[in-house]
């Protein structure tokens, strides 16, 4: 039986980085922080709010996301959208993910 702490550490290690890819993909359509948080949770990529919000700003600073304040609604919200660079990075990351997946499939067949 694997220790719970050990298990969660390994899962966390494996999932690290997937939030970036998921956010870049989801934000091809503009979205705001809380909505993105909920959507990620719904798709099984749950992430902590205190990780996601600073991450969005970091991606924005790196030019991978653009942002715009929407003041149409009663509650002003900051909408993020994947930039051209962000889309390119998402494509690269997705290909990497596919390669890894293929590599693991090969490993399993081989054994």
């Amino acid at each position, binding site marked *: 039986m694997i220790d719970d702490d050990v298990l969660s550490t390994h899962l966390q290690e494996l999932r690290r980085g997937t939030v970036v890819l998921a956010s870049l993909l989801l934000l091809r359509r503009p979205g705001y922080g*809380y909505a993105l948080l909920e959507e990620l949770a719904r798709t099984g990529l749950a992430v902590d709010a205190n990780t996601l919000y600073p991450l969005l700003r970091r991606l924005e600073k790196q030019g991978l996301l653009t942002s715009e304040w929407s003041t149409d609604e009663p509650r002003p919200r900051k909408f993020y959208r994947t930039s051209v660079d962000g889309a390119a990075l998402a494509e690269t990351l997705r290909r990497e993910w596919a390669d890894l997946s293929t590599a693991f499939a090969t490993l399993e067949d081989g054994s």
Partner: protein
Amino acid sequence: MTSTLTDRYVAAVLRTVPGTRRPDIERELRASVADAVDDLVAAEHDPQDAEIRALSALGDPVRLAAQYTDRPLYLIGPGLYLDYVRVVGVLLATVAPLLAVGVGILRHLDGAGPGDVLTSAALGACAGGIVVVGWVTLAFVVAERSPGLRARRARPWSPASLPQLPGTRVDVPELLGGLAFLVLGTCLLVVFQVFSPVRDAGGDPVGVLQPALWDSGAPVLVLLFALARTAFDVVGYTVGWTTAHAVANTVLSVLFVPAVVWLVLTGRLLNDEFFRIVGWPHATAVPGVLTSVLVVLVVLVGARDTVDGFRRARRTSRRHRSEPLPPPSTRRSTSTGEMS
């Protein structure tokens, strides 16, 4: 009432965020908290309970602010930690013995007894060590937070900087020999001084050293020097001898050699009575054969020790530089040559 907790939370986050970024982060954070609260209320939570849950999910506000500003949540990170440990080690190994000797000398000049001198020396070394660790830590904490300083650091590690295996640094025989010589020498001196076979008319033992010098507690200082020297050797053996060690070692020699020479030349070291009884009445005369030999010997030993310190440091730093390790056979012959 419901807004107070959120207000306090937002204020706590913004406190450590630069002013220009505050309005934007505040608006977004408030909207996110409000969205979360709305959702929880819609799921039939009590509004106050919903706010507490929403804020709890965000966690410690200072941690959140640190993530917004990319501030490290540690004093010294893995990139600098090893350098930090090395610098602290070298400084402690050089400064603490020097301080022990320095404090010991000062206390002795104040007229303190042997016990007091040794205690003060130990306390001085400890206090100095704490100060050294404090300042080095502060410097590294600042460096950790200065991207410019961090980027300038150190060439990448290479196998050439691997420490030598024990026995090829300060050699084991050299280390043990030095320690044995120290212990034996001290014992002989004490035994000979206190239980000297040379007796005066009244049958009391007459030592080779001036009784006034002996009674003044100066031997305690010699003991301090010896301990400091031993500390250097042991450190040199375990972590490798550095230029800092060589400099500290030189300072010790500079303190020690002139003092002994002065004692000899002013007739304060050797006991005239001792030499009169053994039938060499003019032995302590200056200039004289014995005193000249003593002075030359002390100066030579001091000089050799100083040069040796720098030679060891150079040998270590040469090993740390890029040159590839010579093949085992040649290395063996070089290290034998260096042992001389």
